[in-house]
């Protein structure tokens, strides 16, 4: 492992410090692992909170700012933050308008969020929670994990909150996004854990895995490495199936690189996937290609799609201003 780091036990603290120093106009760091807006949202609007381990930069804390998240509670590398820190975030933004908590479906995050919510309720703080589960699994009866699609929930529910909608509405919209989106991951090279230098899993020279998780924890389907087009069509086909997309539907399509995969490959993939959808009469009306939720130097990407309706499309287009996602 050849990396530009200092003490491997201080990676998270140092990277958060770096982000706060690079974007002081947008975010500030409080009590070490709470990334908060530099200018807090007015108290009459619903607050958005999320939680998750680090190591996935720019996710999740890169999206704190106007129009998206109010606080991201950051755990150490790939590790959910403990419940008391999540509670601290709730205490910081507690308000009449209420709090929407967005949790990605991973064991540690879900358990931490759950305990923190119970503690908050005991203090009279109301929190509504959306657990994102948009991952496409090899079999339809398996519950999906929460992958990069969380960003869409932050953006769209965040825009709703910024507009002053009620907690019920913000929840309804975020939940709709979760239900109308799908993410499918493909992995071709596995990440190393940046503190231990250990590989998270193993993978053959000419192998790739679809329905792979974020960290190489496996559970997907292994096959021979394919071209951009063949891979994109395989994944996009499963998205069409899961979301029941048909002619005339409008979608947002996102190619989210895992780390090592170059933007060149992601752009070619976007082209191949978009052509596949368009050939079926499904309109790709919005797109994003880049690194959103990464896993160190893993190679591969997540294909993320959201079936739009008028409400979600308008909120996707609403302005936002965060370190790693800005809409003018």
């Amino acid at each position, binding site marked *: 492992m050849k990396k530009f780091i200092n003490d491997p036990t201080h990676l998270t603290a140092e990277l958060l410090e770096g982000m706060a120093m690079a974007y002081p106009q947008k975010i500030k760091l409080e009590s070490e692992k709470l990334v908060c807006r530099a200018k807090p949202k007015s108290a009459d609007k619903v607050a958005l909170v999320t939680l998750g381990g680090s190591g996935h930069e720019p996710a999740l804390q890169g999206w704190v700012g106007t129009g998206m998240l109010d606080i991201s509670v950051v*755990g150490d590398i790939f*590790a959910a933050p403990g419940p*008391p820190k999540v509670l601290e975030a709730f205490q910081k933004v507690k308000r009449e308008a209420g709090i929407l908590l967005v949790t990605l479906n991973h064991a540690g995050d879900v358990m931490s969020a759950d*305990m923190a919510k119970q503690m908050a309720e005991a203090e009279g703080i109301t929190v509504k929670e959306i657990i994102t589960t948009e991952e496409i*699994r090899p079999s339809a009866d398996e519950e999906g994990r929460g992958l990069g699609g969380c960003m869409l929930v932050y953006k769209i529910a965040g825009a709703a909150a910024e507009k002053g909608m009620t907690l019920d509405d913000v929840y309804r919209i975020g939940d709709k996004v979760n239900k109308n989106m799908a993410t499918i991951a493909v992995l071709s090279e596995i990440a190393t854990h940046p503190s231990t230098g250990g590989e998270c899993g193993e993978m053959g020279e000419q192998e790739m895995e679809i329905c792979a998780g974020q*960290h190489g924890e496996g559970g997907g389907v292994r096959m021979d490495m394919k071209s951009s087009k063949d891979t994109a069509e395989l994944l996009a086909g499963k998205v069409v199936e899961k979301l029941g997309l048909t002619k005339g539907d409008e979608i947002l399509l996102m190619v989210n690189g895992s780390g090592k995969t170059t933007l060149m490959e992601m752009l070619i993939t976007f082209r191949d996937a978009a052509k596949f959808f368009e050939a079926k009469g499904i309109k790709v009306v919005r797109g994003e290609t880049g690194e959103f939720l990464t896993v160190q130097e893993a190679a591969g990407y997540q294909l993320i799609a959201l079936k739009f309706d008028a409400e979600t499309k308008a909120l996707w287009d609403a302005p936002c201003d965060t370190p790693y996602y800005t809409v003018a």
Partner: protein
Amino acid sequence: MSTFDKSTLIRMLKQAEANIDTEHEALSKLDALTGDGDHGITIQRTMNAVGKALDDGMDKPLADLLKAVAMKVMMCDGGSTSPLLGSYFLGLASAATADELTAAQTAALFQAGLDNFSKTSKAKLGDKTMMDALLPATEALVQALHDGGDIPSAFSAASAAAAQGAEKTKDYVAKLGRARTMGQRAIGHYDPGAVSISHIFRGFAEAVN
């Protein structure tokens, strides 16, 4: 020795911490096979938090001490490990009625730990989680104390049951945790969390024997 008191429990937890310090690399390697490769880090971080909380809170009554341990555990970013063990220590704290406990009270203490752990965990036996070691260990402990066994032999029984439970996880498909999505491919691999619990109970037994 046959009484169970605060200092015994402290010695037990310290020995458990020492075992985890020795084993953490192997535990991360196990987690790399079915999870994200960090369980050694999280369990070590968690047990070191336990050790630190014990050092800082020595003089507190047992219930308060265990509550402080739970808070410290939950404060560290331990992935699944920190809410699970945090719940366990909160459970212990809730039944720590005195600093010195009878055999029945000791059994109740560990039963309360398991009960509160279960609330957060929701795992069943065979789901390939910590539960597969913690549940049989606690049952063996409670049974032994109920049958009049002394503290050392009760913890030896618990340790043996935990080890056996962890061993069995090799044959399971995971129903919870990161390994859940591996399906059949998880078979043949130990669950790292269950193995950790077995090292912890082995530490308990070593401390009192």
